């Protein structure tokens, strides 16, 4: 497009003009995503950039529209947390065509491929979070026991991948039975209700609950508490402050830190490198870290 070309032309010599970065997040209702946005905002402010945050509310078409509007608006760079990693083709095409640098954060649209020129990725692989939970569970529980998995919204990629990671590890042990996988839709209270029902259904056979996020893990601990079941292992993902505190207190066994700071600020750093003429690495891996009582002090 003509207009977009002109606009980026403007942005090129924007030495004294303010730099605007479009940040298309996938869902601000997701607590973890708000930490990424916070980190990105902080970094942008530090570097003197304006960050224009748009929330797609898990709607891939909306995200596309928002990115298109950013292109029309003539932002200097675009950062995207994909709603659906398999659907980023059109966004990648549109942004590269407009000559605007593009950084994907948190969810990897490229899998094992290398991103095309001018496109970058900062983040991790969701499936790893699930694996970490699984591996630590084996450590705590041994190779025998019943597990319930609390999944996020079934339509959500993170939910699918994290669960896959859990299953990949647990299925290697014959003594471990996945009693149930249910959708708590990321909601605290739904997870609580499901856990209550699991306690009824499986009784002492239920030895562990792996939740796709911390909110649902917290809901599960509430239900277990109320039933006087302190023998059940519970783990979450995200390491939100409440969860970290609970790990420290011992009410939660573990959570998985997905380094929101690293991802959010990392994304902006890549942008700053590109804008100043450097060529950063196409992929910056930010690893998941398991938060357990042993290392929890580092995260508080």
């Amino acid at each position, binding site marked *: 497009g003509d207009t977009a070309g002109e606009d980026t032309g403007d942005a090129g010599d924007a030495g004294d003009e303010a730099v605007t970065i479009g940040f298309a997040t996938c869902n601000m*209702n997701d607590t973890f995503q*708000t930490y990424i946005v916070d980190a990105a905002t902080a970094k942008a402010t530090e570097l003197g950039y304006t960050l224009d945050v748009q929330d797609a509310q898990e709607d891939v078409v909306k995200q596309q529209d928002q990115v298109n509007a950013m292109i029309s608006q003539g932002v200097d760079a675009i950062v995207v947390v994909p709603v659906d990693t398999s659907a980023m083709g059109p966004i990648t095409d549109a942004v590269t065509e407009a000559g605007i640098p593009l950084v994907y954060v948190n969810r990897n649209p490229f899998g094992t491929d290398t991103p095309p020129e001018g496109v970058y990725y900062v983040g991790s692989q969701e499936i790893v979070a699930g694996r970490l939970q699984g591996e630590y569970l084996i450590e705590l529980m041994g190779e025998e026991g019943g597990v319930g998995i609390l999944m996020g919204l079934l339509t959500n990629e993170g939910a699918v991948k994290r669960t896959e990671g859990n299953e990949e590890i647990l299925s290697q042990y014959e003594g471990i039975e996945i009693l149930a996988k249910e959708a708590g*839709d990321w909601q605290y209270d739904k997870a609580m209700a499901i856990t209550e029902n699991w306690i009824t259904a499986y009784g002492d056979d239920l030895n562990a609950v792996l939740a796709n996020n911390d909110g649902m893990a917290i809901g599960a601990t509430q239900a277990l508490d109320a039933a006087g079941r302190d023998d059940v292992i519970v783990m979450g993902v995200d390491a939100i402050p409440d969860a970290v505190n609970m790990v420290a207190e011992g009410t939660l066994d573990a959570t998985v830190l997905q380094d929101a700071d690293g991802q959010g600020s990392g994304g902006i750093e890549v942008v700053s490198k590109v804008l100043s003429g450097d060529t950063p690495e196409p992929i910056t891996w930010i690893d998941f870290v398991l938060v357990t009582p042993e290392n929890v002090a580092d995260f508080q």
Partner: protein
Amino acid sequence: MAEDTKKIKDNKEKSERDEKIERYIELLKKYGIIVALILLVVVISVAEPKFLSPKNLFNVLAQSAIYGIMALGLTFVIISKGIDLSVGSLLAFAGIVAASLGQVSTATTKYFPSLGELPVLVPILAALIIGALLGAVNGGLIAFTGIPAFIATLGMMTIARGFTLMYTGGKPVSQLIPGIKFLGDKIGPIPIPVIIYGLMIFITWILLNHTSFGKNIYAIGGNIKAAEVSGVNVKKNLVMIYAFAGLTCGVAALVFAGRVGSVHPGAALGYELTAIAATTIGGTSHTGGIGTVWGAVVGALILSVLRNGLTLLGVQAYWQQIVEGVIIIVAVIIDMRKNAKKK
């Protein structure tokens, strides 16, 4: 002539007998949704006897409390021929404000750091007042601008959710005072959410069936012109109807905070559909003027029995969705038999 009279008498007797049988069938049909609930309970408890354990039954009740309470407010709204899509968001907003006023003084991320520990009455009142006030705004918009309830409450739904997210920057508020957590606790075997739910059912029932407010709700939904020509203050009543619905969201928010021990801004996302479904399953009609409190209760119970049962039976997640959809439809089809005779 004599034959005639005999015939008439015969007819009369016959029709009296017929009427008795009819009335009996009527009754069964009238409470068709209860029949559906009983069927559901029987099937589940045969398949999984644990369902009938008192503890599980209390669980089922407690689980239905949150959307069940909202369904009570929605009963008023729907009888009056309205709709309220904002109930989930109102719960979240009322809940998050209440939670922010009800944190322990030692909370690590304290929303009002300078605030000590307030008496539990403060967050409770905050939740109730915010719920009722925003509900009243809904009602006011509908009554005084004449916009459809769908639009007013859809707008409120996104607005209230936006404010909720902004209020905490998207973060949850946790470490609540024992007074709030108590609301999710138990007295003996009885969960307090169940007691609160019971109380709300009673209040709603009194309001709907034993006050002129209740009569006005039916009139507004059944025939708004009749209400107007009878001198009913339709606008005032509409405001009250939505304010009450908002109030139930405030109550539900407190139960939520009590049960979960924290409130996050995404709380109760999409609950409007669940609560409306509970009301509708219970026979409250969107064409207005028809509906009962017990219907909303039974509707909410059907949903929670179903969800509990499907989990107990270990039905897979995808199948749970599918089965839930099918059973809701079937339950209402059973209930529809009540209208079969009315041409």
